[in-house]
């Protein structure tokens, strides 16, 4: 048996075995320590004739042949539908109940994220995903819409007051400029916080960089068109 291993090779093997132990700890009827000992012996046996010192490069094909830890078969588990059904019930109640609706919708979205975080580790089936996604989509769409039009009402009100209370074309154009500039600011925020946006949008596959680009272009076009209208009506 080869005794000399480089530190990289030792670290690589330990990481693989730790990951395997973690995966096996969720499997019924399996003793993770026993399996890890067997795997370690297997690797050493495979590399018994390898030239010393064993490097991470020499080790890698052996680990590939063994397979990723995540590929180990797990016995079928009873699917727990209850958390996803509770989330969906909260969502439906939130839609139907007017007075407490918004609170229930927010609560159902937070609960949906909690269930996702807990169950994704063990594998969440597509069917249960359908119960968890609606509150997340609705809340996400609501927050996105609120952010997009946030400056419209205060800006419109201030500008209308300055124009003597009437909503003129000039006021509309000025609101358009404000909105366009605001979307460009939002685009910059989304572009700098791409990971945060992706985390907030999870499990929806949002491409934050693409959203930022489109927001910036649309904002610039709206601001330019509104500015042209503003100078035209003056």
């Amino acid at each position, binding site marked *: *048996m080869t005794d000399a291993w480089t530190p990289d090779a030792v670290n690589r093997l330990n990481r693989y075995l730790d990951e*395997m132990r973690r995966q*096996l700890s969720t*499997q*019924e*009827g*399996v*003793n993770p320590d*026993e*399996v890890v000992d*067997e*795997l370690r*012996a*297997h690797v*050493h*046996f*495979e590399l*018994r004739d390898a030239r010393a010192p064993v490097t991470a490069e020499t080790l890698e094909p052996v680990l590939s*042949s*063994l*397979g*990723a*830890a995540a*590929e*180990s*078969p797990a*016995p079928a588990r009873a699917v727990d539908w209850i958390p996803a059904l509770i989330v969906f019930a909260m969502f439906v109640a939130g839609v139907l109940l007017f007075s407490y609706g918004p609170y229930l919708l927010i609560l159902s979205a937070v609960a949906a994220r909690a269930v996702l975080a807990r169950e994704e580790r063990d594998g969440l089936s597509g069917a249960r995903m359908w119960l968890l996604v609606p509150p997340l989509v609705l809340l996400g769409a609501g927050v996105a819409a609120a952010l997009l039009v946030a400056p419209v009402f205060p800006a419109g009100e201030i500008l209308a007051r300055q124009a003597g209370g009437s909503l003129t074309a000039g006021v509309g154009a000025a609101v358009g400029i404000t909105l366009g500039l605001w979307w460009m600011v939002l685009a910059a925020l989304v572009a700098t916080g791409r990971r945060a946006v992706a985390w907030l949008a999870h499990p929806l596959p949002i491409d934050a960089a693409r959203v930022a680009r489109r927001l910036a272009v649309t904002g610039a076009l709206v601001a330019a068109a509104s500015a042209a209208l503003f100078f035209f009506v003056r």
Partner: protein
Amino acid sequence: MNALHGRRLYGYDIVRRLRALDGLVIREANVYPILSRLKTEGLVHATLEQSPEGPARKYYELTPAGRLRLTEMNDTWERLAHSLRTLREGDL
């Protein structure tokens, strides 16, 4: 379990024998959790023995319950294979 039929083998040797089988798609790392589960279910028995080539090896063999289960599983496999063969030959 068929690999252990009538013989005692250590883990690496089981993997080596399975590796040689044509058409058997199994990741080698899957063999050890399966052995551990079979042991928990009392279908195989493991004993640690010193090896002249290095560290002690764990040898596995079928228990009487394991041999019985293997016979049942092989019978089921034979029936299924026979049914599929019949279906393929158009006799059904």
